[in-house]
């Protein structure tokens, strides 16, 4: 039996904590820098970057940058737009992709293997290569909305949502998860009289908590944080713009770094809240599936 040397044990513990602190610092310091800088005038902010003062609330501290940021851009509207587009896209994406994965996994039809391969192959196509064809397409598509019939989807919420619903990565996540579910559950439900739709709604989706959480987290972060190029080219009206496009308001002739930091701090809050909420659900769902039923 191995004998634990107390001194050695303490050293190992200290090393472990040192590594953990270092890693935590790498992730936390940029956030700290952002929040601290948002409280400082631009001149002081730039001077502080050469010292540790950049991470400390020292000097001329105020909320002035926040007032200025709100005066410069309709931040509330941008956050609202981003949340609306994110929630809309993620909800529809989870529904559509899970249905597609259900079909790929459980239904028997000719060519599904090929179609799944083609779907997954779209993962390697960068968005920039399809941006222009997609723009031409959505600019000519008809739409019937509250304001009536019109041609072209530009300057709307749906133009920011619909092209992003179908997503090969989410389909792949669901396919992998569904394959691991016992096939007998589906067969038992089928023999008991359930239609395919009932199998999907009553059996498969209630058992898919973990993959729904994973899909929702990945897709939400992508939609909220990274949607820049597409809204920039399809939305000219300020009222439909998301947060990332809104960032452009602060990069005029003279960059107001303090306001940029205030803006970034503000738009980070919803992400952190969302992530902390879902992360708990995520861990719980993984823990629950770990117990073999």
């Amino acid at each position, binding site marked *: 039996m191995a004998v634990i040397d107390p001194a050695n044990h303490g050293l190992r513990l200290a090393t472990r904590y040192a590594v953990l602190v270092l890693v935590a610092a790498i992730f936390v310091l940029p956030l700290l820098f952002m929040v601290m800088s948002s409280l400082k005038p631009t001149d002081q902010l730039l001077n502080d970057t050469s010292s540790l003062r950049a991470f400390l609330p020292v000097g001329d501290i105020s909320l002035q940058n926040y007032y200025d940021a709100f005066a410069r851009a309709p931040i509330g509207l941008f956050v609202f737009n981003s949340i609306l587009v994110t929630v809309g896209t993620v909800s529809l994406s989870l529904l559509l992709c899970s249905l597609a994965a259900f079909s790929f996994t459980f239904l028997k039809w000719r060519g599904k293997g090929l179609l799944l391969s083609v779907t997954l192959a779209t993962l390697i196509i960068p968005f920039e290569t399809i941006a222009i064809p997609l723009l031409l397409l959505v600019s000519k598509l008809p739409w019937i909305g509250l304001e009536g019939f019109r041609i072209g989807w530009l300057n709307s919420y749906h133009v920011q949502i619909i092209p992003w619903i179908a997503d090969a990565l989410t389909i792949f996540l669901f396919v992998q998860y569904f394959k691991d579910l*016992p096939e*007998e559950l589906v067969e038992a439900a089928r023999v*008991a009289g359930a239609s395919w739709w009932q199998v999907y709604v009553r059996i498969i989706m209630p*058992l898919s908590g973990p993959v729904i959480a994973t899909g929702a987290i990945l897709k939400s972060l992508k939609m909220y944080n990274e949607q820049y190029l597409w809204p920039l080219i399809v939305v000219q009206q300020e009222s439909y713009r998301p947060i990332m496009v809104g960032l452009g308001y602060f990069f005029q002739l003279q960059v107001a770094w303090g306001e940029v930091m205030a803006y970034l701090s503000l738009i980070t809050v919803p992400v952190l809240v969302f992530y902390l909420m879902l992360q708990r659900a995520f861990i719980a769902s993984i823990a629950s599936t770990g117990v073999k039923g």
Partner: protein
Amino acid sequence: MAEVRLTGLRKSFGDVEVIKGVDIDIQDGEFVVFVGPSGCGKSTLLRMIAGLEDITSGTLEIDGQVVNEVQPKDRGIAMVFQTYAIFPHMTVRENVGFGLTIAGVPKADKDAKVIEAARILQMEHLLDRRPSQLSGGQRQRVAIGRAIVRDPTVFLFDEPLSNLDAALRMDMRMEIGKLHNQLGATMVYVTHDQVEAMTLADKIVVLEDGQVRQIGTPMELYHHPANLFVAGFIGSPSMNFLDVDVGETHNDTATVSNPSLDPIEVKPTDPVTPGVKAKLGIRPQYLTPSSDPTKGKLHGTIELTERLGTETIVEVKLGDGTKVIAALSEDAIFDIGTEVSLTFDPDKAHLFGVPQAGSAAIQTESGG
């Protein structure tokens, strides 16, 4: 309740044919067991009856209707799976009532049926539990309960007891037997366990390599196996086979012998001609130690003894190196290395020709 008729049923997965033309008649209310070694196609055959596998060719009739293209839910069947397949996110009550919920049965009727099923399976106290709070045997009851409430015309069981421990398996086996007597429903049961087959079945279907080897009552299969495969598969311990030379043949008898066996006259199961090689099958239970070591039919040395309490199993190595198993009475005591002489009644021995794969299935008269 219904009759089930399989006619020329075939199933291929790509180029591989796994069911090679199966004909079986299952009578109304009969308990039929499909038995065979792993990979013989018994589960596939059951899944074809359930509608979970397509039928490549042949016809499947339930209650006189051809159901080849009918959806599982419309075949009037219920199935119990080896892995129970109960839904982990539902309570026992919801699991048992699932089929009725799907069918839109009014809540009062559904509740009554669920409670009735729970009463039959003695699990009323479990109705509000989740599957994760149940033992293996309780989960299997839930799966059976889910089948019962639908009043199916045919019950299908796919190795339902394989995941249970030995003691529980025996209890559940007896309960399934009682359930059949109680409900009087047609039941088709797949197992590789011949004890389950022998104890539960009105009629056993022995399958090998996608073909029926014999159909008959358990005792017919035990006493009159139609071929070498069935003879070796049914019975525990397995039947002993001796390579013998066929000597003279008369009307319905043949004289056989080998270096360890003095010539004896037996009734051949397969037709044999003088001078050919054949297999002589003797069940371990029909071998008895001779009081006079020189007068038995087989002579050898004891190599192994197993005392099971109710009987003693001994392995005897014969002079030509062949090993035979004998199931002796519990008080038979032999030391390893002892020379023994074993005797048997030739009328209870079976003589088979050289085994031929793909020999025609023989259906004996069903007494069930």
